[in-house]
């Protein structure tokens, strides 16, 4: 089986001047190429920390992270990755076209190729009319759409989304869901963290639940419903695991 992302016995510790906090403890997770994996957990569980470790934003205390078989510290592997951060902040003094052109340049795209890609992406996220408007005038939802567009600029094989639908209205949320489904149909691997359990239920093949830095459960979405019956919602499943403990 080919894995797009492998976390082996990953531990991350936050060190302060007078504290030491284990944010992630012995996390082992394998994401198969082509699957959509929902990474769930309450606030402060370690979802964003895990994602930050994948991109080497944080030093890993122990364990290994490999992406398509390459060590995550090898920056060249990022040419196959796309990332949509939790907080969509971009340079306010740029227009979406300028921002995406700069990011496309990092992947070595020429202006003509980049512009074609940018037009397609902006149309995909419904922002083509704002292509040349300074981003200082954008709402949170609009920034989120630009964030999604920038994560797709290099046509990545592995996408990592941190709360991709936060700040979006129901229409935009549904369009993000469609985009994710479209990416899945193209065989892309998607790893995303979310609080929107209904979203996760609709798009994910498999979910993982993390609590207090420990991965407590991984399961296929269809298996959850098979085992627990039709009246089981993902939200109830999640609450059961986190608060009451697994029902099984």
């Amino acid at each position: 089986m080919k894995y797009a992302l492998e976390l082996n016995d990953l531990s991350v510790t936050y060190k302060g001047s007078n504290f030491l906090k284990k944010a992630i403890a012995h996390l082992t997770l394998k994401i198969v190429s082509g699957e959509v994996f929902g990474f769930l957990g309450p606030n402060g569980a370690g979802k964003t920390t895990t994602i930050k470790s994948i991109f080497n934003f944080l030093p890993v205390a122990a364990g290994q992270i490999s992406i398509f078989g390459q060590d995550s510290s090898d920056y060249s592997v990022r040419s196959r990755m796309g990332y949509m951060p939790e907080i969509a902040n971009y340079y306010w003094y740029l227009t979406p076209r300028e921002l995406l052109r700069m990011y496309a340049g990092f992947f070595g795209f020429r202006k003509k190729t980049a512009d074609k890609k940018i037009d397609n992406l902006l149309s995909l996220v419904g922002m083509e009319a704002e292509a040349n408007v300074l981003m200082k005038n954008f709402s949170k939802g609009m920034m989120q759409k630009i964030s999604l567009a920038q994560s797709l600029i290099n046509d990545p094989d592995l996408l990592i989304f941190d709360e991709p639908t936060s700040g979006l209205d129901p229409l935009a949320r549904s369009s993000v869901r469609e985009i994710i489904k479209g990416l899945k149909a193209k065989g892309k691997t998607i790893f995303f963290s979310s609080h929107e359990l209904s979203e996760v239920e609709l798009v994910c093949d498999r979910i993982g639940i993390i609590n207090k830095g420990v991965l407590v459960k991984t399961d296929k979405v269809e298996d959850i419903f098979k085992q627990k019956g039709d009246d089981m919602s993902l939200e109830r499943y999640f609450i059961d695991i986190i608060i009451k403990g697994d029902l099984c």
Partner: protein
Amino acid sequence: MLIVKLIAINIMREIFRKKDIYVFITMLLILMVYLANAAFFEIKHIYRYMNEIGLGLVFLFSIIIAVPNAARLMLEEISGKTIYPLLAKPIKRVHVIAGKFLGSLFISWISFGLFFLLFTVISLLKQGQGDWLLYTQVFMGGIIMLAVLNAMTICLSVFCTFSTTVTLSYTIFFLMSWFGANMREAFYRLPILGEIAYYLLPHFEFFDLRHRLIYEWSPLPLWVMLSIFGYATLYVACLLFFVFKRFQKRWL
């Protein structure tokens, strides 16, 4: 190199869209035109006063633009969280540092270049003639000074907050510009500290060649200019190495 260039261009776009630089150009233009028209009591060589005040303003405005701009580059990238999508692309942290440094340097050079051009035109119009080599040397001194000042400010910004960085940068700059040469004498009660400070802090007075132009002294020999350039290059390289070492390990 393309990555570094793209980051640098992005920084330059910001400063020109913020429009601060245009305020300084307008202020300098007004002041220079006013000075050029001044004819107090028919003082002989009044252009020297104009050159002194004008050059002082050129350097001062350039420093006022350079320091806060360089100080916020790394800090805003991190606090604004724009660093995440940036470093999620196939770029290294060293590219970010190089891009930030070059971006802030070009902004400083462009603003200094514009101010200096304005000064030179008005100064030559008032004087009627001038030594081009002296003008060039003063300009080169300013360019080199801004490179060291930018590197020092970026270096401080990876260790301190924005306000501390700006305060420290201005303090070191003005202290060294005014008292750098006499530093060891100033520390006569603490000679070891004086020696350390003398060799550790950047000697901005080396790059300030304004008086040679104002008092019409002869231009500096080439080897002196090359030595100044060598000193600045070494200093910038050391400062950027510290930035890299610090930023490489930084948690984001």
